[in-house]
């Protein structure tokens, strides 16, 4: 009988269909009764650095009223926020030579040797022009990824060079280390500096001995190994932190 295999397949298919669509029919218990989520205070002692003035707490939104999530969604920095954040973290922003249109110039363009690039590229990075768009685009697009990388490279280069030439003045990157310190010669200072940079760039208090800093230590070790230098390694660490999603989102 040719029908027999067909019937077997049919029954098998129907069984699978039933299993797939008709499994658990009961709703989870949590969905039956309204939730009474209690906002949880963050551990204040570890959230703020020592000596930091007290700040008021903002209770988290209930998950039920927030699409099942705790707190609001993370957002990408706008171009203005990126510029301000780079300035705050490294003391510098992206400055480079750029050609801009200039109706007064015979060629129609002028080369500016020290253009503020994040300002010059603001439209490409999503700032509205209020002619064709009024909303800031904060999509984490490829363009943003590339240009944020360029901005971090420029700012970190300038910042590390400034630190190396700064003497005892306030340093942004090499705060607890010198250019002579390596992972072999002074691991304590290196890890303390990582911890300080995590707070500076990401606003996170991470203890120097935390394994969360291992990836930065590996990066530092790779780049500082000959023929590399520690200043190059600190520049790489600065770039890594300034291009990390923890820096580029809030």
């Amino acid at each position, binding site marked *: 009988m040719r*029908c027999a295999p*067909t019937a077997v*397949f*049919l029954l098998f*298919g*129907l069984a*699978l*269909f039933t299993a*797939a*669509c008709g*499994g658990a029919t009961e709703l989870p218990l949590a969905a039956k009764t309204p939730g009474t989520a209690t906002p949880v205070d963050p551990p204040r002692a570890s959230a703020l650095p020592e000596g930091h003035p007290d700040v008021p707490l903002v209770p988290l939104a209930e998950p039920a009223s927030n699409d099942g999530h705790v707190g609001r*969604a*993370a*957002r*990408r920095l706008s171009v203005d926020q990126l510029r301000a954040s780079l300035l705050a973290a490294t003391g510098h922003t992206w400055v480079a030579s750029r*050609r801009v249109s200039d109706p007064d110039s015979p060629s*129609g363009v002028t080369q500016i040797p020290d253009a503020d690039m994040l300002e010059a*590229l603001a*439209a*490409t990075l999503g700032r509205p022009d209020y*002619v*064709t*768009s*009024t*909303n800031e*685009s904060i*999509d*984490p*697009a*490829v*363009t*943003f*990824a*590339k*240009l944020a*990388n*360029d901005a971090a*490279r*420029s700012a970190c*280069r300038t910042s590390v060079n400034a630190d190396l030439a700064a003497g005892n003045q306030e340093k942004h990157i090499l705060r607890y280390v010198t250019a002579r310190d390596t992972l072999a010669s002074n691991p304590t200072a290196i890890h303390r500096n990582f911890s300080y940079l995590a707070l500076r760039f990401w606003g996170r208090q991470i203890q120097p001995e935390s*394994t*969360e800093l291992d*990836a930065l230590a*590996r*990066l530092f070790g*790779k*780049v500082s190994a000959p*023929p*590399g230098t520690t200043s*190059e390694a600190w*520049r*790489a660490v600065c*770039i*890594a932190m300034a*291009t*990390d*999603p*923890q820096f*580029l*989102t809030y």
Partner: protein
Amino acid sequence: MKHDDRTRIGLSKGSPPKGALSRRTLLRSVLTLTAAGFASRLGFPELARAAAQASSTRRFVFCYFPGGWDQLLFLDPRDTEANQKRFDDENRSTNLTETRYGTLDGYNGFSSRLVTAGNLVFGPATEKVNSSAPKITKYYQKIAIVRGINMGTLGHEVGYRYFLTAKFPLGSTARGTSLATEAAAQMQSTVPLPSLSLRVETYNEHRPGQYSSMRVDSLDDLLMVLERGKDMLERDPVEDALSEYAKTGAPCAVDVYDRRGLLTRMRGSDATARATLASKLADKFRFTTGNDPASAAIRQQYGLNRGEAGSPGARAAFAAQAIKQQVAQCVSVAIGTGTDTHFTGNVGHADLLYPGITALAALIDDLAKSPAPPELARLGGDTWLDHTTLLAFSEFSRTPMFNQFGGRDHHLTSSCLLAGAGIAGNQIAGASGDVGMGPGRYDFRTRQTITNGGENIKPEHVAATLLASAGLDPGGALIREEPIRALIAG
């Protein structure tokens, strides 16, 4: 009817055969339902949808004319000589439409005449009488026009974003995903930049990050994005170490904050940016300054002076290069100059509209003259135009009556142009009304413009047509409207 035809599932032109439901059909249906049930049960709707979608090699170019164009001058003109001069300006009080085409006679190379090619009729800003620039009418057999589109808004951003995503915005905030990103995602594009955008907004609401458009504001900025930056670290091993850190460096705790996928999309974009740098794509976009013969030929095709990077022609050349060099599969470009002219008449508007139309014509001409690569030609179609679908659109149009300043304000009813692969050319779908150019009614079943019944054509219908012309799924873009089947080739 062949056996295979009887078992085909989906749209069919023919009627079902006698005894339509064979055992095989039934079994396939049951197993398909079973698989779909399992897929959705296991939480793989994207997987299930992807499996159902055929991959396509189609290219798309979205050409945006910002500011709201005057369709009386381009895609939806009125013949003042026809029907006993019904649309002569003397009759404007009864048809609520005034053309004033006579103001163009002898102005800057324009004339008052309409331009006819096959079944298509264009307005007088489409071509200049003695110009040697490429003419859009040369390719009328590859071009279709949709008229009487109800944009539902008179706000620039709203109409613009409505056309970009085929979803009516919330206020002025875009909803949904840009069609370019949607098409790239459905095609599972594998070119270096699945979607590339020059001065056109892009949105990605539900597609993977690698299909988000790379958006730039100028050709210079594009080169900056594609080139290795001057502050890149000197030694490649250092850049490699940074790349490695970007992939694996962030601690797991950070992923707790990634419930909505932002960090995942950031990492995807970062990886794409690094891969783009490695592929040295910038060299393909130096045509505005290049001394090589290829760059010179591009400048000649688009009528560019050396160094001219911001004109409509340069932007059209950018789109063509992105397609022909296989850098991008979907390209969005603001090809027109702004036409938001409330205070100028036909002459001012035509001056602003014409460069974009000429650039569009040069782009179509370029794609039509450029041979497709062998791997595409093998699929049918010898030129790039045979593999590329173009859409030219604006956010809305201008009023059919002039205002007290002699200009035209914003008008709901608009038109658009479709061209190239998958489009049944030399056709017009829809119409604007004879009084006040309101959006007409269109019967999607009989494919006729009608006066009673039917429905307005909206951007959703155009988007569905565009996707369906490439065998893509409008439903995947959450578009519930029908395509305009009369405009789909084959």
